[in-house]
């Protein structure tokens, strides 16, 4: 049909999990295919980079890790009317963004030389005909203009299908402005999010059924995370790790969450608690609070020594 909407999808610096979430559309796919055709999609069809058609909507997974990602992002931006940053890697850099704690040299040495599963006696690091890593992972909006974001690692298939259908029917999409706690069924203690200690899940075992996980000593990122997933993890007794990223009002998700935990830590003994106590119980701060958002954080990478 001539006037069907042309959709393209592309994967850049991601893991393809977001594309699998598209593959998981189930019956919604029928509704979508009534209105649109997938014209370009490496997961569905044979695609050639020099034959990218003009697209109405392009759904892009993954951030910018290397120069090929950037080139394709720019090309797809030119070819598409509307670009969707799709999934947390695209929107905030995602888990690959933790690579920003290392230099490119450290990363390639680890991958090609130190890795036990890579026989490389000569210690060669491929540098021809492979894309070159940029100095750090960037989110898609840091490289090109995007018209819409759909975060999630991966976004829930029903959320994407609904968003895509709304768009195809000419509607507009708004992300929720509430945090996860608003939709989490767990009971919040009257004192707010006060923790008396910080524990890891293996130390707690199975948490109490109905009580907020923070009150049980688990670092749950719900307070700084957007409510798009419907509190999937706390619903099954696992603390939220913030995979959908923050609400729109938050600039730096990790910093916001650190602030919340420190402020309310043993708030009942505000004036007597050792100020070092909570800091002493948290380690791997970046891994805990920025697992999904480091490239979009205020300090998006590890500073390399300079100065004197």
């Amino acid at each position, binding site marked *: 049909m001539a006037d069907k909407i042309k959709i393209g999808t592309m994967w850049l610096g991601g893991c393809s999990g977001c594309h699998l979430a598209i593959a998981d559309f189930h019956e919604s796919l029928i509704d979508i295919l009534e209105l649109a055709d997938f014209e370009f999609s490496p997961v569905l069809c044979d695609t050639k980079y020099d034959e990218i058609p003009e697209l109405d909507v392009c759904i892009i997974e993954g951030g910018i890790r290397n120069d090929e990602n950037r080139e394709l992002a720019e090309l797809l931006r030119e070819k598409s009317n509307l670009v969707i940053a799709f999934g947390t890697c695209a929107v905030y850099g995602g888990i690959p963004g933790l690579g920003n*704690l290392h230099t490119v040299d450290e990363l390639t040495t680890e991958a090609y030389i130190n890795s036990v599963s890579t026989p490389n006696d000569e210690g060669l690091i491929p540098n021809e005909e492979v894309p070159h890593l940029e*100095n750090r992972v960037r989110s898609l909006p840091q490289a090109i203009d995007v018209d819409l974001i759909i975060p999630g690692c991966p976004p829930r298939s029903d959320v994407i299908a609904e968003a895509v259908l709304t768009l195809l029917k000419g509607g507009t999409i708004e992300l929720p402005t509430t945090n996860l706690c608003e939709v989490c069924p767990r009971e919040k203690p009257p004192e707010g999010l006060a923790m008396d200690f910080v524990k890891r899940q293996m130390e707690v075992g199975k948490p109490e059924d109905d009580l907020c996980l923070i009150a049980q000593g688990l670092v749950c990122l719900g307070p700084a995370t957007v409510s798009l997933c419907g509190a999937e993890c706390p619903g099954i007794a696992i603390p939220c790790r913030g995979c959908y990223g923050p609400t729109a009002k938050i*600039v*730096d998700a*990790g*910093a*916001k969450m*650190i*602030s919340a*935990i*420190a*402020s309310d*830590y043993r*708030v009942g003994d*505000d*004036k007597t*608690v050792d*100020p*070092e*106590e*909570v*800091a002493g119980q*948290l380690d*791997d*701060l*970046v891994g805990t609070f920025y697992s999904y958002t480091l490239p979009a*954080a*205020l*300090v*998006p*990478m*590890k*500073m*390399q*020594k*300079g*100065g*004197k």
Partner: protein
Amino acid sequence: MAEEVKIVMFCCNWCSYGGADTAGTARMQYPPNIRVIRVMCSGRIDPQFVLKAFREGADGVIVAGCHMGDCHYDAGNYKLDRRMRIIYNLIEELGIERERLYHDWISASEGEKFANTVRMMVAKIKDLGPSPLKEQIEA
């Protein structure tokens, strides 16, 4: 000049900013490398403020509030104190030397302590050299 390090200093309205005033009215001398930002209470300092200062090119950051027991809002500085301990660790994980950050309590009458804190921090930061962070982020 490469030597001109920049230090952002957050002062709470009720004590530390008063301390800056006292230093000023008493014409105490201290290096001009600081930019003071007044907030109502040190408890208002969000880690985002500190990170943003570093991102925008600050070579050092000082946070100053009322002495314990003197906070105008009762306990803002206790909360800030807990927060700061985590922020020192965080910036270190991000490769920023923890010496670039400092927090202390300065009352409105402690003009001398205000001036000394600035002198101490400017000396320390000059020793560390300018922060390369902004340049690295913009590269």
